[in-house]
């Protein structure tokens, strides 16, 4: 309800509504983007760019679902585009050597809690499709149907990817041997 009012005010030209939307969702979007891109700095760029594009097109905005779903979907699409374009690469520990490049900052480095750090590292080791489903579902609150739409797969495939992703995370965090 609050989101709907914010959107209506934003569409009617309220900059205050735009800023309130940003403040409300930038944390979630940043976490989702960092989870997908594996890099906090790249995630900040992505969130910035999404909101700038959002601010430029209020009249074209047509929400089918919630504002949170809409913004999370924007993050997912942009993350995919950027990864595909090779502009930004996810930090995947097993196949990327630690870099001295100060422009990148893995998600785990932005987290203080030791358990959550390990989780972030484990998350980064998942195949992208599985990581995407896990992050979008648990952090972005997207339904499997919405995620299936983003990934252009069936809902069963999205659910399977989620189960595989969670199983792999469990194995990694519990120190089990991966096949």
């Amino acid at each position, binding site marked *: 309800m609050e989101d709907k009012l914010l959107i209506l005010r934003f569409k009617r030209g309220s900059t205050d509504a735009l800023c309130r939307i940003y403040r409300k969702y930038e944390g979630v979007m940043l976490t989702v983007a960092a989870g997908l891109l594996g890099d906090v700095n790249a995630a900040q760029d992505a969130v910035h760019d999404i909101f700038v594009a959002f601010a430029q097109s209020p009249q074209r905005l047509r929400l089918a679902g919630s504002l949170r779903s809409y913004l999370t979907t924007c993050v997912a699409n942009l993350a995919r585009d950027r990864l595909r374009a090779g502009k930004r690469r996810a930090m995947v520990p097993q196949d990327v050597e630690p870099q001295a490049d100060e422009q990148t900052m893995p998600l785990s480095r932005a987290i203080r809690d030791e358990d959550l750090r390990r989780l972030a590292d484990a998350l980064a080791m998942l195949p992208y499709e599985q990581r995407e489903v896990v992050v979008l579902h*648990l952090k972005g609150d997207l339904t499997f149907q919405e995620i299936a739409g983003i990934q252009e797969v069936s809902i069963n495939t999205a659910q399977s990817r989620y189960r595989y992703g969670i199983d792999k995370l469990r194995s990694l965090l*519990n120190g089990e041997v991966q096949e």
Partner: protein
Amino acid sequence: MKSAKQIEQSIRKLHIETDVKTREQTLCDLATVHAQQKGKTRAFSLLRYGRTIMRQKPGRTAAVIALALLLLGVFSLGTGSVAFSQARHAVNTTLSWLEAMITGSTDTTDMPPALEQAPDPSARTILCTASFFPVPADKQGIWQSLKDSGIKFVQASADPEAYFAVISRVQTESLDVLQTLECVAAPRILMREGQTAAIASANHQEARGLAIGWLSTVSDDGTEIRSTVSFHDGRNGFEIPDIVMELGGVVLIRAKGMWSYHDNDGNQKESPQEMLIQVQVDLQQTP
């Protein structure tokens, strides 16, 4: 040993924040981009009037302050939320027009123009009714009666002094105490969800009146309406933001000192008029 459930909970807890500098920079960029964007779209605004249905109860003579609740129009007030400046704009514009009509300095009955953005076709239509009950000194017991009915008023504004209470559909049955008051006017207005609209009423004896502005939206399940309501009498005003009420629910507003009270000879009395306003919103059913 972590279970799948624990892992899911941990991922939900995962959260990072943008640093303050980046956040401020982004907010600054957004404000700039949005200002540029607004400049482009303003040219596409359209002229349009809304529709108002006005009903005035008989028995009120013109000699009384005559809130001859003339239908002065529905104003879509451009951009932004319902705000003092917009309500003031509504009342000032309509009062100027009314004054010109009374004095004969204009020969047109056209309403003053108001700017409006293109309506959103998916927006639902909301019916708002505002009933005005002056509360004279000998009827002050109404407040205790309402309190006894379990209706509690919350302060909405200190200057001017105003209070409001949100009443559920069931509680509206206890509003029969309002029958002891005289309703001087009960205008109704049809407005689109998300549309800023206002009604202005005027005293024909002097260039004074009041304007009420609304901005309402309906919840996704269609059970609640959230409204921001503004009042202005051309000199004072107040706003009640984000009132949430169920369909058919009512908001009672007690406003003091916004409207001066005149006797039958047109003389202003010492104490300012107190007004009880009943605002009801409901979805307009489409066939």
